[in-house]
């Protein structure tokens, strides 16, 4: 770990200025991923700008019936908040499926979105990795690939995004509020995380110096039913092999609206638009649910170790929809 300075600015603007001015600086929030990376040598900043205290850590209901979540809200406070529990239970469930009680007490909303892949090669500075060291090669492509992505991969990177929270937020159509050197902008969460393409070193569309200050949720889907299901190797305290967030509105024997997102399958939390399209307006049958789930995974391109993620995602998605709609029970 290289030496670094530590600063604690009083406000978000000041924090953005500090990081913008210093190419060696980066933001520190809960630290659960960054401190890990400092020790591993994955990150070597020369200055840390601590944004806890500089960004909002409250949750407020907005006039349009939605919610504004300060980026500094910890994962546990977010999961426990009465409004989130009542109106956005899929988010609460997703948060509680992640990490451990201790980590959720530390990790923040903004930091959770910006956490980086747990790909073993990314975390091991003695092996090539295009994300860590652009142009050095992707060790995961032909290496230990059990955790690799199956959707939206590139020849340069097959890493997955590890967040559970982000998968839950994706079906809520969350919008990320970003403060940058040239002011504030709003980025739909669906556009925040990038696919690796030829620039796997860039996880998100954020520019240097940009800081997530809040996450906004529109009003909850009326009469929607949601669930978050995570499949992992351990019963707890493990990253997802595959996870499914689903929010559906059922009228009679039809799904009138479906929002489905997948975790553990791509470089970004993955909105399953094809599954949604295949569900909406069709009569509910278990076979139909499966066909809809398969519609999204038809594009999957697994490697030698992770072909299982395709049936696993299809099965898990089908099971979640089955439970939510009561089909086949």
């Amino acid at each position, binding site marked *: 770990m290289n030496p670094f300075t530590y600063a604690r600015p009083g406000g978000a603007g000041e924090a953005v200025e500090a990081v913008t001015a210093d190419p060696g600086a980066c933001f520190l929030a809960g630290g659960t991923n960054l401190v890990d990376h400092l020790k591993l040598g994955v990150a070597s900043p020369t200055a840390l700008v601590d944004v806890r205290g500089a960004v909002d850590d409250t949750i407020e209901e907005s006039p349009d019936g939605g919610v504004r979540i300060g980026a500094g809200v910890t994962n546990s406070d977010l999961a426990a908040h009465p409004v989130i529990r009542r109106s956005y239970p899929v988010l609460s469930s997703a948060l509680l499926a992640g990490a451990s009680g201790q980590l959720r007490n530390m990790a923040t909303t903004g930091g959770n979105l910006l956490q980086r892949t747990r790909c*073993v090669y990314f975390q091991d500075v003695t092996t090539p990795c295009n994300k860590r060291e652009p142009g050095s090669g992707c060790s995961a492509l032909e290496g*230990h690939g059990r955790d690799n992505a199956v959707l939206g991969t590139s020849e340069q990177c097959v890493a997955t995004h590890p967040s559970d929270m982000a998968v839950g937020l994706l079906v809520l159509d969350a919008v990320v509020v970003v403060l940058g050197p040239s002011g504030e902008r709003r980025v739909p969460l669906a556009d925040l995380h990038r696919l690796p393409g030829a620039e796997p070193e860039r996880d998100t569309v954020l520019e240097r110096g940009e800081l997530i200050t809040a996450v906004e949720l529109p009003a909850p889907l009326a009469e929607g039913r949601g669930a978050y299901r995570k499949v992992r190797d*351990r019963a*707890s305290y493990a990253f997802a092999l595959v996870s499914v967030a689903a929010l559906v509105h059922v009228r009679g024997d039809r799904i009138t609206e479906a929002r489905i997102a997948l975790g553990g399958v791509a470089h970004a939390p993955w909105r399953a638009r094809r599954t949604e399209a295949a569900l909406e307006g069709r009569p509910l049958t278990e076979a139909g649910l499966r066909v809809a789930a398969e519609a999204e995974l038809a594009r999957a391109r697994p490697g030698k170790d992770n072909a*299982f993620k395709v049936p*696993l995602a299809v099965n898990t998605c089908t*099971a979640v929809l089955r439970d939510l709609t009561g089909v086949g029970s």
Partner: protein
Amino acid sequence: MIGTEGSGAVGAPMERIEGRAKVTGTAPYAYEHDFPDPLHVHPVLSTVPRGRVRSVDVSAAQGLTGVRATLTAPDVAGTVGAEDREFAVLQDGEVFFRGQIVAAVVADTPEIARQAATLVRVDYEVDDHEVELPPARRELYRPEEVNTGAEADTARGDADAVLADSTVRIDRTYRTPREYNNPMEPHCSIAVWETDPERLVLYDSTQGVHVVRRTLAEVLGLDAERIRVISPHVGGGFGSKGSPHAHNVLVVLAARALPGRAVKLALTRRQMFSLVGYRPNTIQRIRIGAEEDGRIGALVHDVVETSSLAKEYAEQSGVCSRMMYTARARRTTHRLAALDVPIPFWMRAPGEAPGMFALETAMDELAYACGLDPIELRLRNEPGRDPESGLPWSGRHLARCLRQGAERFGWDTRPELPRGHRDGDWWVGTGVASAVYPRLTLPGSEAEIVLERDGSHTVSIGAADIGTGTWTALTQIAADALGCGPDRVRLRIGDSRLPTASVAGGSSGISSWGSAVVAAARAFRDAHGDRPAPGARSRAETPENPEREEYAMYSFGSQFAEVRVNADTGEVRVPRILGVFSAGRIINPRTARSQLTGGMVMGLSMALHEEGVVDPRFGHVVNGDLAGYHVAANADVGRVEAEWLDEVDPHVNALGAAGVGEIGIVGTAAAIANAAFHATGVRVRDLPLTPDRFLG
């Protein structure tokens, strides 16, 4: 036999003597001894699996403020014995595996030492390497002997002919991956080197202070009397702390470079994956020939497993098949591949843990092939005498363990065929396996008893408590042997200045050290009578036991598991495991229960999670941390029950007792895999049982 006299301490569920210190976090582990301004050493590990260090550039590291010394091969070559490659740290530039120590930095703080280590530039001459089993370009070979000193191969009768004539045949190959001990306390040491005269004090996290002292004396060419090793509390070891490893030599080299200063070394979790041993991966082919009634005619167990080119280690995976069941023809073999990999070493129940996974899964397959209940199959193949030695058993109670377990578990209600029970989204099944572990006593332990002025007895032996309950159990044994209450015994362990003790390994501690304590108490009474004066003192060694030549001595057990497998996702849950064990007299039921259930939990972890994944291109385990290498978490573990037969082994030792540190892990993985088969109809022969194995 003790226990019939004294205070009745043996057999009582006495609370751990050091328990209060442990629950308040004040029991000092190796790293936690205070010295003024200690220095910190951080190793630099090789990033190639095979080759030679051409040069090491330490200039940038030395330029860092706070760096006190750098250690490289040219600096320290020739200072330690180089015969054993594990201990020949920095003696030449040869690289035998990725993750070998090739340099080190000593600095004022851990942060500086760690940063400086990243600044050391190592240039290698790289050779081809081979790390996978079976090797493509390297011959397998038969070791001279396997761990424990048993023969590598055994054969009796014409196994091939009997196999060919058998009505029912099983021929299956089972694989177990590399498994890592991962004690929660990483291997840590503090070394202080004093000159004039030369003296070394080492605070170490070890399963045997005298083993460390003896080994370091040899390696350093120093009189053992000049070395003191101290280790009062050890944060687990499971075999990996049963011998010193390269890091012990490194911390001594660092201390010797900076005499008079305490030098601390704490391995990182990642470094442990290449430096402190692991259970080698195995490929085990088992062939069984039986008649339709399940009676076994031939049993063949062929083992291929990983060893290191740096130092041989031969896991005795096949030895369990030499004595578990009847067979008129039998063959067992062990073949090693000496690969460019870190040195494997003991991990809880070496041999029996992987071997019994294979054998007991094969027995389950045989039961289905014969249409027999798996318990009945085992009962039909109970040998009256040890098939290997021909000796009578000192006590073989496997059948009782199986029957008692079946009753307690509710075995008779299970559906006969697999995939016969569905509960909502989950397939449900049950499975059984046998467990076995030899009743070992190691030679070379000695205990001393001194009567203090306040009437208490100080009992000294250089034994170790790695969580096993030694502090408490030896106190109980001493109390009964001396005929006093345990509050009148002051036990001293974990220091090489105390009388010599054998290693805490092979579940031998209670037998080896306990027998020495009993012998010392007898000597004390003989020498000093009923009214000893303060200062009265006696010593005695673990007595030789002539009955070892007359009986085959083993502990046995039955393991039962209930498994649920999700029909959609393949997730495996184990809501219930039960073990019934025969382990001689139980000294302390409270700590024994913890050891047995703890072993079963580690067996569950082996079944469901554990796998060190080797990347053949780079040569190392790529998931070498606790996020990537999964061990069971609390939520993975349901009801775990251990019970034991009321039993005293009259032949094994003066206590009638055997250790219980290892037998709990033996057979658990097979019971779980067998239950998963019963639940789903999917037979998994390669550990671990991850969800993807059950999709389809």
